[in-house]
C-alpha cells in the first residue's frame, strides 16, 4: 500500500510512497544531526501525531503521553546523528524511541493492564483475498499473512504487548490465563512469526 504513513501533511498525503517518505524523513534526521532546528520542527509536524497516538495507547494518561512525546523529540535531537539510513527505516527508529520511552514510563506509572486494542481481524488462512483488496495493515501484507498463521490467543498476546504496552503479567490477567501459558504462547508466536517473516 503506497500511502504515506504519517498524517497532517496536506501536500504529500496522496501519492508519496514508503520509500519517498523514508527518504524525506532520513533527510530531516540528517539536518537535525547538523543542528537544524527547522528540520526538527518539520519532523515533528510529520510524525508527532502518529507517535503521540502510539504513546497515548501505551500510557493511556494524556498528560503522561505528552511528557513522553517531549522526551522522544529531545532524544531524537540528541541522537539524530546516530540514525543510519542505510541500516533501517526512519519510522521504525522513531517509533522505537517512542515505545521504549513509554515502556520506561510504564514502570514508573504502574498502570493497570491496558485493554485490547480494537484492531480489525486478520483474514484467516483459507479465505484468501484478491490481490487488489486493501490489506488491514498499511504496508504490512507480509506481516499480515504471517500473523494469520498464529492462533487467536497468540495474535492477541502480541498485539496486547506490542501495541498496548502490556507486560506478561498484564496479559495473563487480561486473558485470565496462567502466566506460564502466556509466556510460552508469546515465545512460540515469536518463533513462528520469525520463520514466516524470513521466508
Amino acid at each position, binding site marked *: 500500500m503506497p500511502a504515506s*504513513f*504519517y*498524517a*497532517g501533511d496536506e501536500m504529500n498525503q496522496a501519492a508519496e510512497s514508503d520509500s519517498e517518505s523514508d527518504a524525506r524523513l532520513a*533527510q530531516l534526521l*540528517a*539536518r537535525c*544531526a*547538523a*543542528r*537544524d*532546528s*527547522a528540520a*526538527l*520542527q518539520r519532523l*515533528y509536524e510529520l510524525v*508527532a*501525531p*502518529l507517535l*503521540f*497516538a*502510539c504513546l497515548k*495507547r501505551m500510557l493511556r494518561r494524556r498528560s503522561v503521553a*505528552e511528557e513522553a*512525546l*517531549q522526551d522522544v523529540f*529531545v532524544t531524537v*535531537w540528541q541522537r*539524530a*546523528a*546516530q540514525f*543510519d539510513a542505510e541500516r*533501517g*527505516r526512519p*519510522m*521504525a527508529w522513531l*517509533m*522505537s524511541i517512542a*515505545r*521504549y520511552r513509554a*515502556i520506561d514510563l510504564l*514502570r514508573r506509572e504502574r498502570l493497570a493492564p491496558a485493554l485490547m486494542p480494537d484492531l480489525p481481524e486478520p483474514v484467516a488462512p483459507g479465505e484468501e483475498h484478491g490481490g487488489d483488496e486493501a490489506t*488491514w*495493515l498499511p*504496508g*504490512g501484507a507480509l*506481516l*499480515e499473512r504471517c500473523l494469520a498463521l498464529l492462533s487467536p490467543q497468540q495474535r492477541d498476546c*502480541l*498485539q496486547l*504487548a*506490542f501495541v498496548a504496552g*502490556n*507486560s506478561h503479567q498484564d496479559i495473563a490477567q487480561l486473558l485470565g490465563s496462567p502466566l506460564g501459558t502466556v509466556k510460552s504462547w*508469546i*515465545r512460540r508466536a*515469536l518463533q513462528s*512469526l*520469525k520463520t514466516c*517473516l524470513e521466508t
Partner: protein
Amino acid sequence: MNAAPDNPVLLERLAAEYVLGTLRGPARQRLERWRADSPLLEGYCRFWEERLLPLLLQLQPLAPPAHVWSAIEQRLQLRPVMPRPQLPRQLAIAASVLLVAALATLALWRTLVPGRAAEVATISSPAGLLWQVEVFARAGTPQRLTVRAGVFASHPAGHDYELWALPKNGKPVSLGVLPDQQRATHLQLSSPQQQALAAAAQLAVSVEPTGGSPTGQPTGAVVFVVPLRTVS
C-alpha cells in the same frame, strides 16, 4: 556482566521480547547496554522493529496539543523558527536597509585587510553558524580555502560532512571533509578544484562515510546548498 552473551539463540529470543516490550526491569536495561556494543544483537532488534512496524502504522494519528512543541523548544533551547511573525512592511524595509549597510561595511573592511577572501559562503542552521568558507584568490584564480566551524558543527556518528563545489556546467568537485566545532581546515586548491570553484556559484554539503565519499562524487544525502558570494 557487561558483554552480551555469545549464544545467538538466546540473544535472538531476548531481542524479540525486548522489541515486543515484554522484557522488563533489569533484564531490559541489561539488553539495552549489550545492544550498544553488539552488532549481532543490534541486527536482531532492528529485524523486529522493522517487521512489526506496520502494527503501529495503522493507529489513528492523534494531534498533540500545541504546548508540547513549545516545551520541546524550551528544553532544547531552540529558537522558534516557525511560524514567523509577519513583520510590518516598514520594519522589514528598515531591516533590509540595515542588512545592506552591514554587508557594505563588511565588504569595505575586507578590502582594507590584507589577504582578504575573494569569495565567502556561510552554512547555517537556525540554531546558528555551522561553517564559514572563505576562498582566497590571486589574480582572479582561487588558490586557498579556509573552513571555520562554528560551535554547533559536529559530524554524524560513523559519517562525515563533505563540502562540494558545484560548477555551473559540470560535476561536483570535492573540497574536503568539514571540520567539527570551532576547528578550522586550510586547503591548498588543486587545479581541478580551482577550475570548479572558478565556475561555481554554489557549494553543497553531503553526508558521507567517514573520511569522505569513496567515489569522488556525493553518495549520501545533500543537506545544504548555499551560494558562494563574491566579496570585493
